[in-house]
């Protein structure tokens, strides 16, 4: 901005300007401002500009350092597990799979999504273990994850990330975060502080109840005979425009076998999956559980009552397995809110939070050099 003097100059010398002498609206020179008036106006301008900047900083959370943001959530995952270049900040250890979904058309009365019209769509996916360490030792009690991407014929996509727990231990993102903080290992003892864990459970009775349900389901022997749950509720809209709330489950065709956990090597769960899929294609039924009015759609720690209508909408077949290093699924963000028309989120607070945090994790890992995966291409071939 030119200093005031320059404007005074321009005023007195404007006769030389090109079009200006005839056209510019300078007939009435405004009366000069008094020094005090001038100061007041300059101050007013300053306040307005600062106000605009302040409003944006406020929107960006600069004045609320305690607010839980996607970046702070991912920072906490990194504090717990360290930064492993190129890997997901949670569910870091995994292998990729391919296959297809055969819809039987039964889902069409719930949702108009193309995925539920009769027919086959290609699927890529990723089996994973919960936690931010991509080289963790497989353990039967570690949460198992399955991310899937359904590529629909018209370019739409449906992505979902499911786990093997029948309920989620945390009702909202803050609870998940607070638990991460509470379970952080002491740098000296390398153990989480049991007092903090107990305090967390005492203040989160819904987590204690969910953990009791989870403990009553003994983990199966492998990835292939596990059921996977959406946990979060979604709103389906059918061709008539009618809405229903559903949760879905992938129910394995492979028979349940309890895990024994005896003398296993580091990658026994992944090696088991690779061996199994190389023997025969693995299959799951996709089951939609339909809510009744009043069933909680905003709280993944609570199961819906027994006897809710279940609709088998088709079969997922996974018939090939690959290391993360050679499969596109590594570079997919299995954001649970990538949904086709006909499927929408419920009011579950976990959903928007997951979308935001996954995006942050994805952005960080996308720009990093990709370190070799624990399950290497040769591990998959052997």
């Amino acid at each position, binding site marked *: *901005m*030119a200093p*005031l003097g*320059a*404007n005074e*100059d*321009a*005023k007195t010398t*404007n006769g030389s*300007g090109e*079009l*200006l002498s005839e*056209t*510019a*609206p*300078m*007939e*009435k020179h*405004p009366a000069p*401002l008094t020094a005090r008036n*001038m100061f007041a*106006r*300059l101050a007013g*301008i300053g306040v*307005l*500009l600062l106000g605009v900047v302040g*409003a*944006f900083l406020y*929107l*960006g*959370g600069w004045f609320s350092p305690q*607010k*839980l*943001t*996607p*970046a702070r*959530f991912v920072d906490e995952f990194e504090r717990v597990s360290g930064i492993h270049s190129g890997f997901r900040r949670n569910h870091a250890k995994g292998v990729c799979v391919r296959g297809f979904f055969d819809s039987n058309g039964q889902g069409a009365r719930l949702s108009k999504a193309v995925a539920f019209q009769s027919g086959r769509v290609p699927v890529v996916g990723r089996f994973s273990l919960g936690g931010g360490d991509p080289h963790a030792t497989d353990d039967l009690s570690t949460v198992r994850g399955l991310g899937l991407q359904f590529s629909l014929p*018209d*370019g*739409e*996509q449906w992505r979902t990330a499911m786990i093997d727990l029948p309920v989620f231990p945390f009702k909202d993102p803050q609870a998940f975060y607070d638990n991460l903080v509470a379970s952080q290992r002491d740098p000296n003892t390398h153990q989480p502080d049991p007092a903090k864990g107990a305090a967390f459970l005492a203040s989160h009775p819904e987590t204690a109840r969910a953990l009791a349900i989870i403990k009553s389901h003994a983990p199966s022997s492998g990835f292939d005979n596990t059921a996977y749950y959406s946990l979060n509720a979604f709103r389906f809209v059918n061709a008539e425009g009618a809405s229903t709330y559903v949760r879905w489950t992938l129910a394995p065709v492979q028979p349940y076998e309890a895990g024994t956990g005896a003398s296993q090597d580091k990658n026994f769960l992944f090696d088991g999956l690779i061996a199994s899929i190389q023997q025969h294609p693995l299959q799951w039924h996709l089951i939609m559980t339909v809510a009744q009015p009043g069933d909680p759609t905003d709280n993944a720690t609570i199961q819906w009552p027994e006897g809710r209508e279940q609709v088998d909408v088709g079969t997922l077949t996974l018939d090939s397995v690959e290391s993360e290093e050679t499969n*596109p699924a590594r*570079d997919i*963000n299995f*954001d649970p*809110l*990538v949904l*086709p*028309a006909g499927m929408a*989120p419920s009011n579950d*607070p976990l*959903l*928007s*939070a997951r*979308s*935001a*945090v996954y995006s942050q994790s994805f*952005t960080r890992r*996308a*720009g990093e050099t990709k370190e070799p995966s624990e399950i290497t291409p040769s591990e998959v071939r052997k």
Partner: protein
Amino acid sequence: MSARTTTDRQQFTGSMRFLHWLMAAMVLAMLGIGIAMVASLGDYRRLVSIHRPLGILILILVVIRFVNRRLSSLPPFPATMSPQERFAARASEALLYTLLLVQPLVGWGMLSAARYPIVLFGSLHLFPILPHSVMLYAVLRRTHTFLAYLLFLAFVAHFGAILFHALIVRDGMLSRMAPWRVRAR
């Protein structure tokens, strides 16, 4: 368009003024939505689903606006402006136009490079405009943040300059873009 029409008017044409205020509101909203959504867990999903279609609408409007500007006559600068100020005004206009064109393209491009479906609403989605590469996504995602901050700074400077002219110099600069009709004096 003859040179004479240019000299007749003191105001931008009605369509230019309309587009200016419409887009000013949209761009400010986009900056606010963008900044708020990346800091929010609860509102992220709602805000992103407004951010994408509104950003694409800005892309369409900026093209219309630029063409409209080329076809319209422009009012001359007020005589109070020194050559340096005119240069600064032209440069900041060019910067704003460029940012309004490039920023939504970067948004579209980064989602393309990550192979996200670029959903506008319902089943309506855009085709990807860049090859699949997460490294490219990461670079463009950072560029999107950088350009957003640059756009914000350009807006603050623009706003400050207008306030300065309206309140201190009082040369009728604001009336050139006023939403209402200002008769030539």
